[in-house]
């Protein structure tokens, strides 16, 4: 609203007219029926317990001790773990994924690619990084997403030398947690 004045101002000696009563109520009802706004709510008047869950953030995670296998014979990126968020408005998705990467048998030139896919988009990618027998990792990514189910996936790919595609060696990920936070835009 802003301010709503009574349309009809009654005074002593007036003839009783029901339209005065009806009109004054109709003015206020018009605001009440869907047009209340910042002027009707006191400054700092909305406290957290008055706000519906999911208004600002939706958070979920998947975690486990594992280990989750990463197959050395496969070519390209492999899904390792994922989490789904059900968001009801457009939002920014922030994701974090960390754990321990271990080669079953470390190759001579061990390299690993790590990335986060957020709703099909690339949240963040480390295309190739040197990883010895065992190393912890932590990757963060961000992407916009629309309302609906948002799938956040942690992926890896393995290299057994500095130039070739993956061959042979297996690996796994343990003590992992993948976290997705939807922040309302």
């Amino acid at each position, binding site marked *: 609203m802003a301010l709503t004045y009574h349309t009809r101002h009654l005074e002593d000696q007036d003839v009783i007219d029901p339209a005065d009563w009806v009109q004054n*109520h109709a003015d206020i009802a018009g605001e009440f029926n869907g047009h209340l*706004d910042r002027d009707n709510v006191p400054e*700092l008047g909305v406290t957290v317990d008055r706000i519906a869950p999911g208004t600002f953030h939706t*958070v979920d995670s998947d975690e486990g001790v594992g280990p989750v296998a990463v197959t050395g014979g496969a070519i390209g990126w492999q899904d390792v773990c994922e989490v789904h968020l059900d968001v009801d408005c457009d939002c920014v998705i922030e994701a974090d994924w960390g754990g*321990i990467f271990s080669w079953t048998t470390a190759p001579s030139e061990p390299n690993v690619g790590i990335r986060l896919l957020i709703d099909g988009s690339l949240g963040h990618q480390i295309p190739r990084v040197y990883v010895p027998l065992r190393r912890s990792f932590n990757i963060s990514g961000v992407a916009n997403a629309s309302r609906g189910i948002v799938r956040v996936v942690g992926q890896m790919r393995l290299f057994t030398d500095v130039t070739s595609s993956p061959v042979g060696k297996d690996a796994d990920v343990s003590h992992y947690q993948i976290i997705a936070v939807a922040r309302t835009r």
Partner: protein
Amino acid sequence: MGRIQITDIERGDAGTIGAPNALLAEWATESANIDAENIAPGGLDRRNLDANVANGEMSAPSEVFQNDTTIYNVTTTTSPVTFGGIAAEIGPFIIDTTNDREWLIHVSAEISVPSGMLIFELHMADDGPVGTGTFVLLPYTTRRDVIGGGWHSAGMTYRLVEPVASLTTWFALYAYDTAAVSKIRNVDIYAEELVR
């Protein structure tokens, strides 16, 4: 949504109190049904929101130990990481994950593993800081690193999943190394409270 239906009164209607009372009853009933639909789209702004409505306020500042020359030498027993006698810890926080709150704890550090293997973990206590509190390992926060790469970055983001109600909490970084040769420096730990 609370919606007021005006009980119309026309000129010439019988002068009873029935119609005015019906309208007053409508106000009494519908004012208890106010919800989001009563608010105009985009009608509220930041001025209407109380402090810490969307993001909680940390009850203590995050501790920062960022100094290349201040190094923690890891020991063979699981111990809190300390710098000049000050533990890499944060708290106390009043943790409540049951009241539409979420807690994320972020840790970043720089580690050196000249040989063997370094294990570092995030621990939590609800009875005091390092020195007096009983710290326990938070699940899924164990990190293991073997030799290689000189100084390199390491870290974790941990979501406190377990429902915890109004628990005063400290978080601290712990580490051990079977060969006692690993080192840790440039640690930052901070906690983030989100309102769902």
